[in-house]
């Protein structure tokens, strides 16, 4: 219980630091929000008026207070380019991206764990070489290359999946999944490499442990030994690495969603950066940081469930 409390406290502290950093960074960035809204040719008096009404003339601390207060109450301000409340915009796009992130993680784990186990069981044999070579290929080729390849193979040649676009999950959830599949697969292949290597190395270590020999000496079937006894011990570090990859994924979806015309967080971030939509950038960065933190918290808590040694430690 103290462990969970400790983790929660550290999450709250980190979230606070994140608000400080995002606020500071967007304030340090050159450029003036008011000028961005009204354009460079605008009337200086109107500009000053807008500045005043946006609170840009207040001391930084007051501005920060307003911003954090707004964040907490759900008033995240309006996007300059979409002319819509940011909160609403982000909620919608984040849901779309969550589908891609989750799907690519599932694909990566579903491929990496069996492949890594397979390599560990047949260590230093041809299976190992096949596994590490394919994992290496996954990681050495950039995501967008996989994306292009997916579009070519599955959309152009086979026609199984749409090559581009997004469907609102509220209208047609299956359609959303179909649109999300190819970008997820492309991302998953890139993720898979690290996870395969991690699975292989932890499994190799576990398979050399005495309790594996004991399990075999008990007469348990080899598949029980590997998939129950060994994997239960090896999966923890793999999940930790998977959790850390969530951050990397949010970086990758910027390219991937734009490539597939999938209008999620990644696409939104790209648009915000391109158009210097400062309020939107601020909120997006905050949301991404928070999501990465919370998923890592979830992973750590999951670890407690998997490994009984942590509960007491």
């Amino acid at each position, binding site marked *: 219980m103290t462990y969970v*409390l400790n983790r929660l406290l550290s999450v709250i502290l980190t979230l606070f630091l994140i608000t400080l950093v995002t606020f500071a960074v967007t304030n340090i960035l050159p450029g003036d929000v008011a000028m961005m809204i009204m354009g460079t040719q605008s009337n200086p008096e109107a500009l000053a008026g807008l500045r005043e009404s946006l609170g840009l003339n207040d001391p930084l601390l007051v501005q920060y207070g307003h911003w954090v207060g707004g964040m907490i109450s759900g008033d995240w301000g309006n996007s300059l380019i979409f002319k819509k409340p940011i909160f609403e915009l982000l909620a919608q796009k984040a849901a779309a991206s969550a589908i891609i992130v989750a799907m690519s993680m599932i694909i990566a784990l579903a491929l990496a764990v069996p492949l890594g186990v397979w390599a560990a069981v047949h260590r230093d044999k041809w299976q190992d070489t096949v596994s590490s070579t394919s994992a290496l290929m996954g990681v050495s080729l950039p995501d967008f290359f996989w994306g292009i390849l997916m579009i070519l193979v599955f959309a152009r040649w086979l026609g199984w999946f749409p090559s581009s676009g997004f469907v609102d999950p509220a209208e047609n959830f299956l359609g959303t999944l179909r649109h999300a599949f190819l970008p997820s697969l492309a991302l998953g292949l890139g993720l898979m490499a690290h996870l395969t290597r991690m699975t292989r190395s932890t499994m190799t270590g576990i398979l050399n442990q*005495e*309790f594996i020999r*004991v399990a075999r000496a008990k*007469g*348990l079937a080899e598949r029980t030994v590997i998939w129950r006894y060994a994997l239960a011990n090896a999966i923890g570090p793999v999940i930790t690495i998977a959790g850390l990859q969530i951050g990397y994924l949010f970086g990758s979806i910027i390219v991937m969603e734009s490539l597939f015309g999938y209008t999620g967080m990644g696409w939104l971030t790209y648009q915000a950066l391109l158009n210097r939509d400062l309020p939107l950038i601020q909120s997006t960065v905050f949301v991404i940081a928070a999501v990465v933190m919370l998923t890592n918290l979830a992973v750590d808590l999951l670890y407690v469930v998997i*490994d*009984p040694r942590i509960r007491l430690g």
Partner: protein
Amino acid sequence: MKDIVSVDHLRVEFATGDGPVVGVQDVSFTIAPGETLCVVGESGSGKSVTSLSLMRLVEFGGGTITQGALTFMRADGTTLDVTAASSQVMGQVRGNEIGMIFQEPMTALNPVFTIERQLTDGLMLHKGLTQEAASARALDLLKSVRIPEPERRLRQYPHELSGGMRQRVVIAMAMACEPKLLIADEPTTALDVTIQAEILALINRLKRENGMAVLFITHDMAVVAQMADRVVVMYHGRIVETGTVEQIFENPQENYTKALLAAVPKLGEMKGKAAPERMRLIGDEAARAAQTAPKSRKPEVLLQVKNLTTRFPVKGGILRRTVAQVHAVEDVSFTLNVGETLALVGESGCGKSSCGRSILRLIEPTSGEVWIGGRDIGALNHHDLRRARADMQMVFQDPFASLNPYRRLKAQVAEPIQNFGLASGTDLEARVVQLFDRVRLPREFMTRFPHELSGGQRQRAAIARALAVNPKLIVADEAVSALDVSVQAQVLNLMMELQEDLGLSYLFISHDMAVVERIAHHVGVMYLGRIVEIGPRAAVFDNPQHPYTQSLLSAVPIADPRKRRFADDLAFKPITSPIFPLSYQPAKSTYTEIAPGHLVLNA
């Protein structure tokens, strides 16, 4: 009676990058029901490969049975050709008709499953029991291996149990399906001596009650003497000699067996002898005869330890504050004379290593004084302490870990000399050559790396490194514990020879009472951070007064099959925790002198 196991000309090979390597060859023996057969040998002798072959587990380690027959009499009376059996049949035999116990209780249990799950899965698999029936049987098993609070243990995870309890669980697991053959591969090597005694007694009782046969693998001749009906001696993958335990110990035929037995110290053999004696080594009689009578030195104090106390903080809570303390070393005082050996003995966690390290200030003691050659070590500043370290060196247990794998031995032995600026250029070269000669390492080893040496050779190199700065005191922390018995004897003799020639003083930290009896001048017995009894070696061994010393000595296996001590169940008092709350004020250590220099801690 028909043999339960018969092994005939077994040969096992391992595939390596450089072609097949023979693990064992031409190994033949039989085991009768109700019999204990001990397979004894030093590391690399092939004893574990033999036992793993019987279960066909050797194939998981890359081994292949290339020749010979392995016959096992199954429960239904049919004989099974183990080499040809399918993996399904082997699955039925493993854990069901043959049980196995392994060396490392700390790693033999799956850390993420409960004890109950690990005890019941075999039962459900082999005996077709329901979950409830299997759980009930698991509870009975834990009771039969005499685990305290068995109901609670079922729901616990391995890390919540002590080493001794874990090994009992492993034994319960092996016994679960009432196998006809129990294979025990070094089952007590990793355990403290009192727990070893309990486990050996437990195996003996279970064997007697169930009439099963036991194949007992060990490197420890004293354990063999205590456990075996018959003995197989192995060396380099072959059987050297086979016989009843009395034949092997009293009338060994082969030179290897003789040498092996000679090198084993027997507890009690030093009775009535005042001075330490070199270890027996066959072919070394000349050297021992040449050994001059121990020089009678005028006692001159080298090391004086006064009220040494070392505590480690236990951190807890959100702010990681110190919430309790481990009282590792608690009010310890003793003196060590020039040219003598003081042995600190005790079981794991008793504080003997922390004591040695506190003396050298490798860990900072909490309080107390340490004087070496009239210098107060505790009062030295960082710079002077560095200088003072030339007088006090340390030899660690695992020479492979204490030597740098990336540097040649020459550089590692020369390093302390250079650090202290004692020699350079050709002088340094000459000094290193001299050190290699001194520890009897061939000079061509100077350019080798640690991995190119055997364990004993590595420990010699570690000793050479410690000697490089002409120390007066060497703290040897389990320095020979990881070595095979014949190598151990050689290294001990080297240490004793160096002591005689150079007047070295040793603080010899060890758990091995038989070795200590042979080589120490004085002995201090440690328990929960305190010295509970200290005195001349003969006084402590021949007339132990503290209850802990007595139980420790009663638990040591004796390398003599006619002095068996582990027939009935044994239950030694478990060692309590040395962790106390911050407010705890321990009493001072006060002693009663029952004979000159022989002190016993007051209760």
